[in-house]
């Protein structure tokens, strides 16, 4: 009758060890985010593109900053400006901490979105916004990396076209790890909440 005691204790210790191990591994998951978590579901931030000053940049240039990644294009008159205007409000609510955040606006229309065109565009919203463009291949690779498909759709006369694109805003921590997903309809307060967690935790 004493026999089952030992395994039970062993089992308990084993379970405890597992919990501790899991907690260690899932250290990232400990933050009480309000938005959809994407840790482990989306790869780390990685790209090589041209910024709106015409400079070649990589994800490493933004290490140390909390990054908001959004795909769009400047000829988008409605949803893209709305999203960037919302993000501007979010940045204002972060106050001084906004300096540690970068909004990366990646063009899914590199044909029309030159660095110069992007420069004027992003400046019209928030000063912490960087416009990124590049070869069609580089843009496609980045959208595929985050399963953010886009497609060109002809509209109206004069060869004008619209681009259907992902509405997601991917949030990365200071180390470039994907953490949460925001959308244009996410309440601003929730995004502010999660950005503050990432800015304060330093993890």
């Amino acid at each position, binding site marked *: 009758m004493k026999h089952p005691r030992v395994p039970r204790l062993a089992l308990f210790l084993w379970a405890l060890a597992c919990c501790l191990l899991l907690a260690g591994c899932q250290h990232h998951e400990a933050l009480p985010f309000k938005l959809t978590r994407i840790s482990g579901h989306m790869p780390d931030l990685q790209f090589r593109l041209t910024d709106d000053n015409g400079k070649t940049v990589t994800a490493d240039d933004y290490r140390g900053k909390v990054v908001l990644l959004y795909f769009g294009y400047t000829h988008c008159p409605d949803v893209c*400006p*709305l999203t*960037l*205007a919302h993000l501007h409000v979010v940045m204002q609510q972060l106050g001084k901490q906004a300096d540690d955040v970068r909004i990366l606006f990646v063009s899914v229309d590199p044909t029309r979105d030159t660095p110069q065109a992007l420069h004027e565009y992003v400046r*019209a919203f928030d000063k912490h916004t960087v416009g990124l463009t590049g070869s069609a291949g580089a843009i496609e690779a980045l959208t595929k990396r985050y399963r953010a498909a886009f497609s060109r759709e002809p*509209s109206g006369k004069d060869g004008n076209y619209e681009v259907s694109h992902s509405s997601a805003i991917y949030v990365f921590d200071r180390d470039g790890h994907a953490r949460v997903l925001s959308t*244009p309809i996410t309440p601003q307060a929730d995004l502010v909440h999660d950005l503050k967690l990432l800015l304060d935790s330093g993890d």
Partner: protein
Amino acid sequence: MKRRAILLAGLLVAGLAHADAGVPVTASHAWIRVLPGNLPAGAYVVLHNDGAKPLALTGADTAAYGEAMLHESSSTGGVSRMRTIDALPIPAHGTRTLAPGGYHLMLMDAKHPVHPGAKIRITLKFDDGSTLPVDFLARPASALSDKD
């Protein structure tokens, strides 16, 4: 001769009255989000149909832009897209809102640079043939409504 003149005057008055009271629609909160360069802009407005019959907005004309198109944005399944619509119904005694992220007028090819603060006259067209001139306030890119 005199009778004909009276008839003519009567017709003229009738015509004027029709032009005046033709649209039972009132517009409010009309604004345009101005983007840098000559990028297309979105125009937004709240339309109220005071009439007893449903009406539909079918388009718009403005001297300030080369083209004004009626559009709807949607973000379903995580994808943002935009489509052209032919008519936007406004129910009898009802309201229809054109707002960012949904219905809007897409203004293309500005004839002159439009700066925030400017008033842009846009004539709205309805399915019964009537029109309604509305002054839209040009607002900066980061604006979220007609006021701060």
